[in-house]
């Protein structure tokens, strides 16, 4: 699920199109360059803006629809900036066997938004994810860049407190 709750479309920063063109131009020599370009754009510019799509299509000399199709197929690509802290909770079988579904309900209540959503103050984006490969130490939760194992509701609250 992509983050779609932000009411207004994000306003791209000035110079964004130029920077997107530079990134795409730098990487276009790679085989299958589109996904590496989208990753690079998101890493530097936080998300993939609707206005980035025709720029990338132009550099790669492919249809706008093709780029749009790829951006919307893959969950990783955000269409709007994420909150200041991202929280991703594994919801796959192994983590479910040790309470990940209850942990998710707790997280939604205590953070105040659902999966794929960002809190109204832009503080936290909550996502569900299917497997970090930490299946023997679940439930697994990623806060920002850091992965945590054996996360209980109390531990999650503590982690969120640190992130505040």
């Amino acid at each position, binding site marked *: 699920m992509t983050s779609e709750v932000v009411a207004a479309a994000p306003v791209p920063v000035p110079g964004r199109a130029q920077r997107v063109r530079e990134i795409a131009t730098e990487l276009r020599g*790679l*085989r*299958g*360059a*589109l*996904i*590496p370009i*989208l*990753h690079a754009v998101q890493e530097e510019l936080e998300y993939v803006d609707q206005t980035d799509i025709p720029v990338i299509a132009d550099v790669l000399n492919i249809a706008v629809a*093709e780029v749009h*199709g*790829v951006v919307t*197929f*893959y*969950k*990783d*690509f955000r269409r709007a900036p994420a909150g200041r802290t991202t929280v991703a909770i*594994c919801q*796959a*079988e*192994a*983590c*479910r*066997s*040790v309470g990940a579904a209850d942990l998710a309900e707790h997280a939604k209540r205590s953070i105040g938004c659902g999966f794929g959503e960002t809190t109204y103050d832009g503080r936290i984006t909550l996502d569900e*994810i*299917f*497997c*970090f*490969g*930490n*299946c*023997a*130490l*679940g439930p*697994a939760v990623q806060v920002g*860049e850091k*992965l*945590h*194992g*054996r996360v209980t509701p109390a531990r999650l609250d503590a982690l969120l407190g640190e992130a505040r």
Partner: protein
Amino acid sequence: MTIRVYVPRDAAARSVGADEVAERIAAAATAHGQDVQVVRNGSRGMLWLEPLVEVETAEGRVGYGPVAPEEVDGLLAAGMLSGEGGDIGAHLGVVDELPWMKRQQRLTFARVGVTDPLSAEEYTSYGGMRGLREALARTPAEVVETVVDSGLRGRGGAGFPTGIKWRTVLGAESDLKFVCCNADEGDSGTFADRMLIEGDPFTLIEGMTIAAYAVGASEGYVYLRSEYPDAVATLRAAIEIARSKGWLGADVLGSGLAFDLHVRVGAGAYICGEETSMLESLEGKRGQVRAKPPIPALEGLFGRPTVVNNVLSLATVPVILAEDAEAYAAYGTGRSLGTSVFQLGGNVARGGIVETAFGITLGELVNDFGGGTSSGRPVRAVQVGGPLGAYLPVEQFDLPMDYEAFAAAGAMVGHGGIVVFDETVDMASMARFAFEFCAAESCGKCTPCRVGAVRGVETIDRIVAGEDRKKNLVLLDDLCELMTDGSLCAMGGLTPMPVQSAVRHFGKDFGA
């Protein structure tokens, strides 16, 4: 003399505080003027003991685990740096002598947890590059036949003989061929690919180079999932080192072989673990599956002949070449030869990596190695082979881990992941989740998967609500049969496996 202390850099170990433990040890050693080198190794695979600290002593590597950061000072005061502290709970003794380790036969995972993953010197001193040197001394066809003779089958789940696939690619005429490693390990309960890449990345590089030599490929791609950032960083660093050592590049080991390797990061689509969908994604497209034929071995990446193998298949090739096919095939049973890297996860007391010959029973893995559940409640079900594998009751714990035996029981070994559930599990909700997951992750190309999964969720909801229960159970069976027979790939084709096994073995959860 420098004391070597090992603290894993594995993502699982880091998720429970390994970085903080390593920092504390280094800081304390500096403060006390002790000559300590902290090595960030891979994980030994005893994940319930992470962070597992090991200290090199004259007797061997003595382990302490699990070690919390705040326990470090106490352990150091108790003599951890000389391997002492036998009266402390975390003191494990010599790690190689632990029964959990001694009962295993580690071939693919021989170096994981033992060496520094990014030390090329340690890699070669622990037997690395022997397989590639052996391969380069043979003809490509001989290398292919060695892999055929070893009986190695695809460790990604399908179990197709690796050597046969290579033979097809070798025989295909093309000026450009590829080797692609499928490292999109999206199945819940599987983490061996991740641990191998983080713990011994040169083995994968060596295996892919052998594959390239055997089939005549010049470029390799590792499709690695974005959920594994540590593995991405480690593999990229290892590739740089391999290039600088002449293990990759225009003239591999001075043999004239030209082969280079690239990492491509996935973007959060489970379906890209399916080989043709992965190829589409590598080409920069939506990860929609392709109809087969043509098979990727003949028309794969960008339409060229392509080897597509799982991480563990490729990482097992070096030891097969180094030790020879017969030695490898001496392990295992029936047509399941060699060792497999089983992964214990979920509600299990002792989760982790168990590499052992095929033929060990499910019960030995879950009870003897795993020690039952972590909750202490009785085991009720295990799911073997990922989200598309069957749920099995304890009554089937005598099943041997063997591709054919599992298939005969309506289950699959798959990637060797085993997820344990205790008696609190509601199997109707797990069956519903299997459909939900399929609906969310379906690429949408074929109708049985795209629509069938949604209808499956609805049908299970009706059964659980007691609405026309008998009729809906028949309908569910019919839907499952259609998905099995009519889907384009294993996503839709195997989603019925967890569903039907749950109904078969745990019928009372469905309101019977």
